[in-house]
């Protein structure tokens, strides 16, 4: 009778310690970081919105989320995410647009993410940061949260652990150090959908097939 030989200690076992999901096996960035959205992979489930509102407000409510799913029809359904990409100082349109001094919406240089001083924010009626951002990222949810809602990378006591990245079932969100200038990710969801729609060429927007009469005649 043969007994199974125990594997030698030196042979690494792939995935032995892997217990989680998402990209948590990869080390989180130490310095500047952002959440990169891979919109081609987004299936529009809304789990990221749920995780975001749960972390920040302890409730399940997508309207309180700082990441938003936009569900388009191009003409078939496609969902894309919209989230702050923590732009570099020169490109930070929201900070420049804020009418208050110092700006309510600004970058925390120690913790490497955007911050909003909720008490001072003028709220939905002002909305200048939202208008200035090319991707319309800052959201408002009056009257409960009448201040700009912007991604803070789920930073709490100096530890950043983005919950949307943890929860995404298709690995469509990735927490990483910037690979290229962040503001290039700052694409308006309408444009994201438009880019994806080009894959469907030559379909038209409101008709996606020829009628039988066009093909075979009356």
């Amino acid at each position: 009778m043969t007994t199974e030989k125990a594997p030698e200690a030196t042979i690494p076992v792939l995935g032995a310690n892997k217990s989680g999901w998402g990209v948590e096996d990869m080390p989180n960035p130490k310095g500047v970081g952002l959440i990169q959205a891979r919109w081609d992979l987004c299936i529009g489930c809304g789990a990221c919105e749920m995780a975001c509102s749960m972390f920040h407000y302890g409730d399940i409510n997508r309207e309180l989320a700082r990441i938003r799913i936009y569900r388009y029809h191009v003409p078939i359904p496609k969902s894309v995410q919209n989230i702050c990409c923590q732009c570099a100082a020169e490109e930070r349109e929201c900070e420049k647009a804020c009418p208050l001094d110092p700006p309510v919406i600004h970058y925390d240089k120690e913790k490497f993410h955007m911050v909003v001083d909720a008490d001072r924010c003028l709220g939905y009626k002002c909305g200048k940061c939202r208008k200035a951002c090319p991707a319309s990222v800052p959201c408002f949810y009056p009257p409960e949260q009448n201040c700009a809602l912007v991604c803070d990378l789920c930073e709490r006591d100096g530890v950043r652990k983005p919950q949307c990245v943890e929860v995404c079932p298709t690995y469509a969100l990735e927490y990483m150090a910037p690979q290229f200038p962040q503001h290039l990710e700052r694409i308006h969801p309408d444009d994201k959908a438009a880019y994806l729609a080009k894959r469907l060429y030559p379909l038209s927007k409101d008709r996606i097939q020829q009628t039988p009469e066009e093909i075979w005649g009356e």
Partner: protein
Amino acid sequence: MTEKKYQMLEINLTTGEKRVVDVTADMRKYIGGRGLGAKLMWERVPVDTDPLAPENILYFGVGPLTGTLGTIVNVSAKSPLTLRGGTSNMNGHLGIELIYAGYNGGLLLTGKAPKPSYIYIHNDKVEIRDASHLWGKNNLAAQQALREELHKGLEDQNFRIATIGPAGEHLVRNAGISHDFYHHAARMGMGAVMGSKNIKGIAVRGTGSPAYANPAKLFALITRFHHDARLKKAQDRRWGHNISIARRYYDTTEGVKNKQLGWDPICDQTNSLVLEQQYKVWNDGCNMCHLGCKVPSMRRDPPLGPTIAELRHDNVGGWDANCMLPGFDVQVYLSTLLDELGMDNEDVSGVVAWMMECYQRGLVSQDDLDGIDLTWGNLEAVCKLVKKIAYREGIGNILADGLKLAPPQIGKGTEKYAITGKGVAITSYELRGSMQDAVDMAVVPVGELHGARGAARWMACDALTVCGFMIRPLHEVFGWDNVGLEFLPAAAGWEVTPQEWHDMVQRMRLMERCNCIREGYIPERDDMIPDRFFEETIYSKYGEPKILNREEFLAFRKKTYLSYELNPQGIPTRESLIKLGMEFVIPEMEKRLGQW
């Protein structure tokens, strides 16, 4: 823990009156969705009502778990196809918008609008608006037009829209409701009911809060489920649910040539790997589902031109080998055509396959079919016939009545070849391959819907408004019996015991059964499958003979009735009705059954 309040929006289309009804007590008993739909039909639709009359209701049902696990909306109305209680599901994001708009008990439409209209719901702003500019448009065009109109001045795209196509407007009895173009509540003629109410579409947007009873606990459950189930059934993300067709051909459980054959060489043209590599565009999914099994497929080449469609077992199974129309190019074209016209692919393919067999046997001539040469695999003929059905032109006017009402109108022995159960076409299933499938489908009181729609798990899912494809992952992660016990306290604040949970599911199942019995359903007579399955032997690819034995079928059916906690005749026992607090159905039942 405080129990959540459930509010249903009721719109009387005749008078334009809108009111919010508290349905908390009924939800607690019948869960919601399909269960509450059956209860509302019992209460509000008089016996023997014409399903296309204003007295019928149309209920867009949501349930306590809408928006937590793969969201569906269950549509209930008396079915014009079977003339009894009807139910149909559509996935997508409509349910979550109803929840966010504050109508977590669903949307009930009664009466009939005086002119073509659509319903606009934006939180508590509810309007019945004129839809004369949308009337007559195909599904996609209508949805795009409505979307453009509604999004004016809005910053997002989150209005969710459901419409009917020309088939629904022409009261074709197997018309469906289309939501976001490729989610369809197609079966059982729900689109015809919507058309009979002069409602072209529904547009919903909510910005409230779902206000679950215990969000933190619910979040923990959902993330645990997503984490543990992330690989379960995740293959569906590659091919969608087209994959089961190929396996079913090999199991002899997928129909070939209107069930005349068990195998044909064209079956091998359905290869999901080809679909994935050649046709797939991307994935999209439904609310809070980790699978994202919607895989639109695209073709570009002439002669059919560019077309895009979502291929699933349900919508293409009936066309594929059943009408001898193989190949994804054809499927993508046909599926889109039916979606545009707003008809149930599965049911219409059953009607067309039936006509094809009658034509093959010479029971109907080319003249009867208005000059259409309806040979097997003739795509052009099928497309023309389908359009005739959608607009009720010529022969289409008869065929649009579905497989319960059309065969007697045509006569000449054609009834024999209609493969139907209770008026609902059995197309993408071949029952001789599996006795379990045959019985599971036969004992569904509303009609032979796909799969075991009468079994406790499926019906519980339809009532909780959780997608049926969640059953297996849910079972593997939590164990099925624990799903209600874990999720209901967190989502709704109902502290249910195992017995209570069992009773809730059983109550909604009996409600649906009683509702059908009241309309003349006799389980022993109606829970049958066509004789062909008992009389003609078919052969699998490897020459294995397949046929069902009638006695075995009846014995199995009896066993299934007992497992459903019914009496051996398939009727709920008096004791169980009293035990579950449903005494109010007994007088009506006695009118049909006497002292049973």
